[in-house]
C-alpha cells in the first residue's frame, strides 16, 4: 500500500531531508520511501518509480512530499512520527543534538552543533586536562570543578587568552551567557547590565536584585575565586571586562570580587579607567574610601545592584540602605548575639564584613576553622565551606547541616538573631523553604517556652522566574515565623540594628586618577560567545545538560570516564601525545 504525506510550504535544509529519508528507509516493514519537493518533475519521478498516488497531485512545488510503500498500515504512524520529529521546529539541527550522548571528544564534537563552550564538572584532578582538551578544540571553558591547582589555572587561562578564549573558573558556580544559566544560576531577565564576578553567590545576589527592580542582565561572567590572585593576574576578569565594554548591548558594567591582590586591583582599575561606559565595582570586604567620575565603588552587593540599575536608567547613583521596620521581637538585655548560617559564601562574607564594621570597637575576633566570623557574641558560618561539605552535598541542596546548626544556636541564651539565606534557582533544592520552615517554627517555640524571644531573619535569593517560585519560598518562610528581608544587606543591617548597632555608609569624595592607555580590543570569539546562546558540551553532571537545554540552548552530554584506568600520570602522557604538534600522524 502507498501512503502519501504532504507538508505544505515546508522547507528544510537538504541534509535534513536526506537524513530523514535514510531513517525512514531503515524502518522495518517499509518497502520503499521517497521524499522530495512536490514539483511537477518530481511527481513524474514518484509515478515512474511506482510511488504515484492520487493525493500526490495536490502537492505544490513548495511542499515536501513523502510517499511510503508498506504492507503494514501501522508503520505509517511510525513514519509520520519520524517526519514530525525531523521537520518540527524552525531550526533544523536544534533538536538533533538532544538526547545524544558522547563518550569521547571526537564524538562530542561531531554531535554538537557548532559548539563553543565546554561545561566541566568532573573531579578536580582530571578537570584541568579536559579543560585543556576543550581549549584545543577551540571551546570556551566553564569549570565548575574545584580542586584544580593554581598552576593549572594559570596555564589554562594563559592558553585561553592567547587563543582568544575564555576560561571561567575553576570553582566557578555561576554564569549567565546570553540568557542561558550555567550551573547554580537564577533565571534573570535580559537587559543592559553586564556583570563579571569572581564570586558565585555574589553574582546571584546582584543579578536577582537587578531582576526584581525590573531591569536585566546581558551576561554574567564568572571568573572563579582565584582569578584576581597575583599568580593568575585577573586574566579572565580583564578579558571579560573588555568584552562587556565592546558589547553594544551593555550599558553598565558591574565588577564583583573579594578584595584582590593590590597589584591586580591596580591592573583591573586601570582597565576600568580606560572605559567610557559607567562602571560599578564591588571589592567585597573593602570599605571604599573614594569615588570616581565614571566608576562607582560600592560597599555591599545590594548597593552594587541598585546603583547599576540607577545608572542603567540614566539616573544618578543614590543608594540608601534599609532595615526591616516594626520587628516585633522583645529581646532581653543578655541577648546580644547574631548567628548567620549561610549557604552562600559571598553572602556570609558580606554579613561578616558588616557585623565587624558595626561592632569594630568591641569586637575581638577569634580565628576558628569553619567560621567566616567568630567573636564572643557573633558567629557567621558559610556551610558551603569545605569543612562542612566533606562527603556531603552543598547546603544549597542539602539542609541537614544547617538545620543542626540552627537547632544548636537556641541553646545559647545570648543568641538574639538568626540569619538564613535561601538561594534558589537552577541547581538549587526544589523547595528549601519547606525544609527549613519546621525548624524555624520549632526553635521560635522552644525559645518562647524558655521565656525568650528570637528573631529569625531570612532572605531569598531568586527571581519570579525561578522554578522554586520566589513568592512561594517567601510565603513558606514567613508562615514559619521568619522575618523576610529583601536582600542580604537588609537582613544583616536589620540584625545589627536589633542588637543595637549600626553600619555607616561611607560618604566619599570623587577623586581623579592618572591611568595608562590600555588596548581594549578583545578577540572576536569572545564577543561572539557572549552574544549568542552557547552551544554546549557538558562534561560531567548530567543535570547541567538539562538546565542548558531547558533554556533553549543546545547541549551534548559527554559521559566522561578517566582514560588509562584513571592513572593520572599515564593520562598526562596520552594527553601530551594527542596534542603533540611536532610529529606526523
Amino acid at each position, binding site marked *: 500500500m502507498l501512503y502519501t504525506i504532504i507538508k505544505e510550504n515546508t522547507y528544510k535544509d537538504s541534509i535534513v531531508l536526506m537524513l530523514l529519508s535514510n531513517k525512514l528507509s531503515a524502518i522495518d516493514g517499509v518497502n520503499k520511501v521517497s521524499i522530495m*519537493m512536490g514539483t*511537477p*518533475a518530481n511527481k*513524474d*519521478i514518484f509515478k515512474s518509480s511506482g510511488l504515484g498516488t492520487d493525493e500526490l497531485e495536490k502537492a505544490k*512545488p513548495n511542499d515536501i512530499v513523502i510517499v511510503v510503500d508498506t504492507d503494514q498500515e501501522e508503520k505509517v504512524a511510525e513514519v509520520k512520527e519520524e517526519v514530525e520529529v525531523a521537520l518540527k521546529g524552525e531550526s533544523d539541527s536544534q533538536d538533533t543534538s538532544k538526547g545524544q550522548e558522547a563518550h569521547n571528544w571526537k564524538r562530542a564534537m561531531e554531535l554538537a552543533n557548532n559548539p563553543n563552550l565546554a561545561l566541566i564538572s568532573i573531579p578536580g584532578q582530571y578537570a584541568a586536562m579536559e579543560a585543556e582538551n576543550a581549549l584545543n578544540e577551540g571551546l570556551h571553558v566553564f569549570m565548575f570543578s574545584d580542586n584544580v591547582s593554581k598552576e593549572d589555572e594559570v596555564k589554562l587561562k594563559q592558553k585561553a587568552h592567547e587563543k582568544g578564549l575564555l576560561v571561567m573558573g575553576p570553582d566557578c558556580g555561576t554564569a549567565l551567557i546570553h540568557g542561558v544559566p550555567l550551573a547554580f544560576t537564577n533565571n534573570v531577565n535580559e537587559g543592559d547590565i553586564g556583570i563579571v564576578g569572581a564570586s558565585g553567590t555574589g553574582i546571584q545576589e546582584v543579578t536577582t536584585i537587578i531582576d526584581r527592580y525590573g531591569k536585566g542582565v546581558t551576561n554574567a561572567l564568572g571568573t572563579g575565586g582565584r582569578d584576581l590572585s597575583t599568580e593568575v593576574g585577573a586574566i579572565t576578569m580583564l578579558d571579560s571586562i573588555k568584552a562587556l565594554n565592546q558589547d553594544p548591548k551593555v550599558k553598565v558594567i558591574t565588577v564583583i570580587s573579594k578584595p584582590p591582590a593590590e597589584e591586580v586591583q591596580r591592573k583591573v582599575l586601570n582597565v576600568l579607567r580606560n572605559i567610557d561606559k559607567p562602571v560599578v565595582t564591588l571589592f567585597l570586604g573593602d570599605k571604599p574610601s573614594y569615588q570616581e567620575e565614571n566608576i562607582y565603588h560600592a560597599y555591599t552587593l545590594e548597593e552594587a545592584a541598585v546603583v547599576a540599575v540607577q545608572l542603567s536608567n540614566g539616573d544618578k547613583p543614590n543608594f540608601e540602605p534599609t532595615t526591616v521596620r516594626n520587628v516585633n521581637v522583645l529581646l532581653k538585655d543578655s541577648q546580644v548575639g547574631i548567628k548567620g548560617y549561610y549557604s552562600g559564601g559571598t553572602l556570609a562574607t558580606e554579613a561578616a564584613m558588616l557585623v565587624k564594621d558595626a561592632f569594630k570597637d568591641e569586637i575581638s575576633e577569634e580565628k576558628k576553622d569553619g567560621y567566616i566570623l567568630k567573636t564572643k557574641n557573633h558567629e557567621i558560618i558559610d556551610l558551603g565551606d569545605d569543612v562542612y561539605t566533606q562527603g556531603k552535598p552543598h547546603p544549597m541542596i542539602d539542609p541537614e547541616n544547617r538545620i543542626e546548626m540552627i537547632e544548636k544556636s537556641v541553646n545559647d541564651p545570648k543568641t538574639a538573631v538568626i540569619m538564613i539565606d535561601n538561594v534558589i534557582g537552577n541547581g538549587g533544592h526544589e523547595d528549601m523553604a519547606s525544609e527549613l520552615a519546621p525548624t524555624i517554627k520549632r526553635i521560635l517555640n522552644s525559645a518562647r517556652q524558655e521565656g525568650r524571644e528570637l528573631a529569625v531573619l531570612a532572605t531569598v535569593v531568586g527571581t519570579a522566574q525561578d522554578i522554586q517560585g520566589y513568592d512561594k519560598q517567601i510565603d513558606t518562610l514567613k508562615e514559619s515565623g521568619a522575618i523576610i528581608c529583601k536582600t542580604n544587606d537588609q537582613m544583616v543591617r536589620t540584625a545589627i540594628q536589633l542588637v543595637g548597632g549600626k553600619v555607616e555608609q561611607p560618604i566619599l569624595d570623587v577623586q581623579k586618577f592618572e591611568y595608562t592607555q590600555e588596548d581594549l580590543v578583545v578577540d572576536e570569539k569572545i564577543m561572539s560567545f557572549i552574544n549568542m546562546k552557547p552551544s554546549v558540551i557538558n562534561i560531567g553532571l548530567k543535570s547541567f545538560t538539562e538546565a542548558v537545554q531547558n533554556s533553549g540552548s543546545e547541549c551534548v552530554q559527554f559521559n566522561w570516564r578517566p582514560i588509562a584506568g584513571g592513572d593520572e600520570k599515564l593520562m598526562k602522557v596520552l594527553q601530551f601525545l594527542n596534542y603533540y604538534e611536532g610529529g606526523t600522524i
Partner: protein
Amino acid sequence: MILQASAIGSIALQLLKEEKTFTVHSMFEKGLNIVDRNGELIFVGTNENGTFPFGILLDPQTKQTVKTNIRVGDTLIFRNNRLFHNRFEMVFNVNILPLYMDFEHANINKLIENFKYISFTSYESTDFEPARVLSLINKLHDPTQNLDEVFRYFIGRGQGLTPTGDDILVGILYGHFLNNFIEFKHLETLRALIKEPLTTIVSQRFLTCAIDGVFSSKITALQHDPSLESMENLIEVGSSSGMDTLYGIYLSLTKE
C-alpha cells in the same frame, strides 16, 4: 533590539523599498528566506554557502539572534532604511556585495584541467546521466530546437530544496556566461518557464538570477581562482547542490 546587517546584495537592495512588507517564508540552519508580495525572495543569513545578490548577509551571532526572535509567517516592514520586526530592527549602513560579472577573467583551460580531478561518475545511470545533459547542452546552441519539454524535464527534478535539475541548469548557465553558447531564444523560453510553478521558490530565485548572469559568490569564485580549492568550496554547498552546479559547469565547458 537593534541588529546590524553585515552586507547586502544588489538585488536584495532593489527589493527593499519604503513601506514594503515581507513575510518570513522559511527558516534554515544558515538563515531564513523572506518574500515580498510578488513572491520575490531575499535570503537573510550567513555566508557559509557563499553570498548571494539576493542576500542580506549577517554574522553568525546576529543570524542566531534573528532566528530566535522570528517565526515562519512573521511580517517585516522596511521603513527609513530599516527592516522592522516586532522584536528587533535591522539597520543597513553597510557595503553592497559586489556583483561579479567579469566572466572574461575566467581561465577556462585551467578549469577544464582541474575538472579532471573531480569525479562525476555518480551521475551515470541517473535521471541526469551525462548523455542526457549533454543532449540538452547541444540543443541549446541550435536555434531551430524547441526546448520547452526538455526544460520541463530538468526544472524541479530531483532531491533537495533546489532540486538537482535546477542546480545543473544554473551550472550550465554559468558555463554559458564563461563561454557563450546558448541561443537567446532558449534563454527566453527558460525565463518564461521559471515563472510557472514548476519548482521551489528558492530555486526559482537562483534560476532567474542565473539567466541574467548573476551567481552566488561560491560560483563566481571560479572565474577569479580556477583552483581545485574553489571547486571544492562549491561542492560543499548544500548536500548536493554545489556538486550538481559544478556538474553543469563541467559538462557545458567540456561539451566538444
